[in-house]
């Protein structure tokens, strides 16, 4: 076998489960990571010769665990081993290990590993960076590039975050049902944040960072494989797939933003949309609506329309109204205003938007939408002020450029009027 890329793929696929199990054994993130690294090194030596193991995750866990135990024994004079009780539930055979990888313990292991990254003391961007490093196994260089910061700065950020969680109590007991649900929702929120960081970058030149979106989808699929019947995780998966499906149409060749109305829908990734529909079908049968499912349902309405003029805006308005009742937020109302604009016109939408000013005065999209509505109502001076404000709050060059096209349109109209 000359092409060894399968080893890379197998290790990447096995990583979350393997690191999570090692974390349970050793109750220390650093030891778990070290053990995993060593197991990977050995895999690179053994697998090309012996071929792929039956279950790469089980192999890596066993080898990593044995390595770390040896290390601990070597240091046992200085450092106590973990309690025998902690280590006693470790089987010897790879097959036995592989069998247990399907059990609930391991499911909770991976959830715990993700949950540890979501420590409430850590700012959101550090949670994301940590999850990318520890769970996904991206290199510091890759993460730094994704966040458009220097490698040294990212290294420091991740080290600091790791120190933070090593001092915190990691919850090692098996969670109860309520606790498990809480952990799931915290982790889901982190994955959603990670996706959004890629979907609409919060700084810099690049407007979309696909690798972050893809990583978020990979993590949400992992979570869904572990918690298959969870309606909100189904919803989160569907939502991310539907949003990501539009990526090829969201920017033109010059990297300018193309709004959904103007996107070439033939570029949308149909295979992702089909998968999302299948997941939503399952979620609907469970009859426990939640915010991710509703947002996915909204994205699905767009995905179902062959042309933008076929969009069922009344359905979108209805779904946003539902979202407003179960998760009220000014941003949700702002989004609903777009549906109201399509159904009832700009005046009704503006009436919905204006009261949001105190809450959203420093939100780019608020001023962008408000300017757009004022422009439709021919209140051009006010529109110009709103657009100027939006530009000053733009997160990326593409966002600013998009608003500038509106301002140019207003300027051209002004000139035309003067000429007459």
């Amino acid at each position, binding site marked *: 076998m000359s092409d060894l890329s399968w080893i890379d793929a197998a290790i990447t*696929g096995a990583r979350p489960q393997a690191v999570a199990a090692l974390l349970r054994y050793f109750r220390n993130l650093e030891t778990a990571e070290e053990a995993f690294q060593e197991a990977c090194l050995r895999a690179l030596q053994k697998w090309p010769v012996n071929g792929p193991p039956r279950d790469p995750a089980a192999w890596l866990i066993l080898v990593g665990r044995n390595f770390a135990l040896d290390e601990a024994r070597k240091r046992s004079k200085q450092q106590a081993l973990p309690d025998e009780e902690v280590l006693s539930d470790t089987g010897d055979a790879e097959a036995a290990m592989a069998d247990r990888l399907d059990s609930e313990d391991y499911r909770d292991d991976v959830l715990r590993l993700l949950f540890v990254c979501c420590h409430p003391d850590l700012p959101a961007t550090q949670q994301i960076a940590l999850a990318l490093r520890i769970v996904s196994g991206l290199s510091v260089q890759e993460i730094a590039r994704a966040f458009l910061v220097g490698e040294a700065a990212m290294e420091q950020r991740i080290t600091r975050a790791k120190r933070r969680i090593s001092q915190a109590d990691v919850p090692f007991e098996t969670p109860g049902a309520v606790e498990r649900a809480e952990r799931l929702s915290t982790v889901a929120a982190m994955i959603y944040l990670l996706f959004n960081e890629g979907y609409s970058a919060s700084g810099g030149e690049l407007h979309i960072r696909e690798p972050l979106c893809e990583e978020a989808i990979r993590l949400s699929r992992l979570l*869904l494989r572990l918690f298959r019947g969870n309606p909100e995780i189904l919803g989160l998966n569907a939502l991310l797939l539907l949003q990501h499906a539009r990526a090829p149409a969201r920017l033109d060749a010059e990297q300018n933003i193309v709004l959904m109305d103007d996107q070439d829908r033939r570029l949308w990734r149909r295979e992702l949309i089909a998968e999302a529909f*299948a997941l939503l079908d399952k979620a609907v049968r469970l009859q426990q609506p939640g915010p991710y499912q509703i947002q996915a349902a909204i994205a699905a309405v767009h995905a179902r329309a062959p042309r933008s003029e076929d969009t069922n805006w009344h359905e979108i308005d209805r779904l946003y109204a539902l979202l407003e009742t179960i998760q009220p937020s000014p941003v949700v109302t702002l989004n609903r205003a777009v549906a109201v604009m399509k159904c009832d016109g700009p005046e009704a939408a503006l009436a919905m938007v204006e009261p949001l000013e105190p809450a959203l005065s420093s939100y780019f999209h608020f001023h962008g939408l408000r300017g757009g509505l004022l422009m439709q109502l021919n209140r051009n001076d006010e529109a110009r002020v709103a657009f100027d404000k939006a530009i000053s709050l733009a997160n990326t060059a593409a966002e600013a450029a998009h608003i500038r096209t509106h301002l140019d349109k207003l300027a051209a109209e002004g000139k035309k009027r003067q000429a007459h």
Partner: protein
Amino acid sequence: MLYAVICYNSEAVVGAWSKEKDDAVMAHHQGVLAKFAAKGKLGPVARLMPTTTATTVRTGREMIVLDGPFAETKEQMLGFYLFDCETLDEVIAAARELVHEPGCMEIRPVQFFEPGALKNAAAGK
């Protein structure tokens, strides 16, 4: 003789493939399939969506519908059907009718489908 060739792999691994890698794998498969299609030796081909999209209908004493894939290593795959249904409920209803003896049917949406064309479709020849 008609043969079914069934593809197995770890979803954790396949799910971690980049789009380029996935496209390359599909292109390789298409190349092989084209060769056999040209000789009239290829029947329907389907790539299924991930098991996360699966629903299972199982019958024992009573019929139950589960929100997950079939996951019982003690049972073996015996065959499969392709249905073209409008909704998940419709195909669940079909599976319910099919599960006559105690056993189970897993429902998995199809991601890629190629109808193929076999000249001699009779099994056992």
